[in-house]
């Protein structure tokens, strides 16, 4: 973090020596020879640099890249079986690359919904507390910058890394898919994939902000990391069990034969399940990448009567998952606020 401090000094023109200038990226220096770089930008660039050089990030990206390639391989070997005649989604072959699997390895979207939280937690759990513990935070704050630049820059920097990574992975899958299958995605398929990548970024940002909040809340990075991971495991493993326990407890066997009671129970179960962000994410990605999905709740025969199986237009798919997207974005913002307020109010002393 000392580098960051020096850069800020450099960018403000105070003590602008050749040695300090050298710290700046050469590309940035060339572009901004006669221009004062905004300090926020410098912090963001520094955060990005710190992250992509860290072992933690390299390990995480390796895990995700390997699983991605694995799922892509299974998708490519099974795509010929996945294409059926008279399939209403027959025109969306390319999207199947992201969704199909033969059972040995999960599909791409399952991997993303599983490993995305790990990435978010892994990037953010020591964002604030490690700087605090190392004493760099007080040095940073001694510079003439606004205090919220630090936490904002951390969030923006991590999000940039995640976005670039996801877009790189998504386009890698698309590119390999085009080479392997010889099928180019249609504009709608491309848009759906891009929206899926944006959704994945929002989803990881949700966990990232939660993790940053823990890093503000807990002094020890280990505590923050464990808390984040336990929340993640709670939602992926225990929460479904708890929900099914609740459902078992409240369901009345006398009324089970009543269809409207069953629908009510099913809706209640779905409503409870949707408190889990991973459920929201998997429902939303499923709808985006499988255009034939029409509804995310239970459907009665009454509603199905007279329907023609066919893909939904992109706008309708987005409208269907819009509540999910809203919930994820709101959760992301909420955790950011939760992290932001205590960070701003905290008294930071140098050790």
């Amino acid at each position: 973090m000392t580098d960051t401090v020096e850069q800020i000094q450099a960018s403000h023109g105070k003590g602008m020596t050749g040695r300090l200038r050298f710290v700046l990226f050469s590309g940035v220096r060339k572009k901004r020879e006669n221009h004062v770089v905004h300090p926020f930008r410098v912090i963001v660039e520094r955060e990005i640099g710190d992250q992509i050089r860290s072992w933690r990030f390299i390990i995480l990206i390796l895990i995700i890249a390997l699983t991605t390639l694995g799922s892509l391989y299974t998708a490519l070997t099974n795509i010929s079986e996945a294409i059926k005649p008279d399939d209403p989604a027959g025109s969306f072959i390319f999207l199947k690359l992201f969704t199909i699997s033969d059972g040995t390895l999960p599909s791409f979207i399952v991997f993303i919904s599983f490993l995305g939280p790990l990435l978010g937690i892994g990037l953010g759990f020591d964002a604030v507390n490690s700087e605090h513990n190392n004493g760099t935070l007080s040095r940073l704050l001694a510079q003439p910058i606004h205090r919220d630049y630090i936490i904002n820059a951390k969030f923006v920097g991590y999000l940039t890394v995640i976005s670039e990574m996801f877009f790189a992975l998504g386009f890698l899958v698309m590119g390999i898919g085009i080479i392997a299958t010889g099928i180019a995605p249609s504009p709608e398929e491309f848009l759906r994939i891009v929206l899926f990548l944006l959704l994945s970024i929002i989803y990881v940002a949700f966990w990232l902000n939660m993790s940053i909040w823990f890093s503000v809340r807990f002094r020890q990075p280990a505590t923050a990391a464990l808390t984040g991971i336990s929340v993640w495991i709670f939602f992926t493993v225990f929460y479904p069990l708890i929900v099914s326990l609740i459902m078992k407890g409240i369901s009345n066997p006398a009324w089970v034969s009543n269809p409207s009671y069953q629908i009510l129970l099913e809706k209640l179960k779905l409503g409870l399940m949707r408190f889990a962000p991973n459920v929201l994410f998997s429902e939303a990605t499923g709808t985006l990448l499988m255009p034939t999905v029409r509804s995310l709740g239970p459907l009665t025969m009454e509603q199905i009567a007279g329907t023609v199986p066919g893909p939904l237009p992109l706008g309708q798919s987005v409208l269907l998952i819009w509540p999910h997207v809203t919930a994820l974005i709101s959760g992301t913002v909420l955790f950011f606020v939760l992290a932001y307020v205590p960070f701003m109010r905290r008294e930071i002393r140098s050790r």
Partner: protein
Amino acid sequence: MSCSKKFVKRFIISLIGFALLNASVSAQGVTLYTPYTKIAVPPGETINYTIDVINHGNARKNVDIRVSAMPQGWTYDLKSGGWNVKQLSLLPGGKKTLSLKVNVPYKVKKGTFRFKVIAGSQVLPLYVEVSRQGTYKTDFTCKQTNMEGTSKSGFTFSTELKNLTGEKQRYALQSAAPRGWSVIFKPNYKQATSVEIEPNQKVNMTIEVKPPHSVQAGTYKIPVRVVTNNSSAALTLEVVITGNYDMELTTPTGLLSTKITAGDERKVELLVRNTGSAKLDNIQFLSTKPVNWEVTFDPKTVDELGPGQTAEVYATIKAYKKAVAGDYVAKIRARTPEVSSSVTFRITVKTPMLMGWLGIFIILVALGSVWYLFRKFGRR
């Protein structure tokens, strides 16, 4: 004296003549016999006479046979034993049968005609009474000139064309059918525009008539003619088209899909077309639709629609408020007791944007709170 001498002389001559005459009858002794010496026939008839030639004498006789005074235009054939005979030789007491075939022409006047069969000195006069005025023309007939069917049937008339003229004729086959009708002549089972017939020969000809596609119910006359340069014959065929009922339901553009936001309604213009040949009364409109959808029609019924006419109907389709987004099928049917027609609409249901705006509002509130925090805490 001279007077008496003259008388005697005359008497002797006449006596000798009488004796001679007697001698010739007895000497020749040949009789021609046929039972039908006067018959009545229509023009164009062929008469077959059987004439017996009998030798009453005691000697063998050779007699010349001929027919004389045959009216003009009449032809005959005199045969015996398969041969055209000119002379017969008869044994004493022998009898020979001649057959005489006389063709009465068509072009003949009414009246009695006479001709003779002469055998040696024997003359057999024969009389033929032509019962009516003969013609010199073509005979074109059809036993059943009236047929009934629907607009989709074909009508096949069997006709007979006779050349009653004395010469070979080449007939051009013509029809003056109303517009749109197809008339095909098939003499000898082959489609043709002309036919050649020998005199006194006939040809069986079928005439195939097809009504136009959009023919209205009614009786139609189809005049057909056979024409040569000097003769013609005409026939009027009659086709009765019974009304058929047919109806088509469609939209003006042919587009059978539409989009509806759930809970909204959409007006669809429909066209009912009477493609049959009979009037349609009281056309009703029905719909098969997804549950809780509503389809209303304006007007509810079409009271009357003539053949070929088109009526506009507006169907208002109202999607169920809670319909799930996606494609639906609604079937709209126009119905009369006689016939019905239906169209299937593919309706794409969209969900209302209300929830979307609510979501955007929530996100804006969240981002607004962050902005408020920036303002409150950030710049100090």
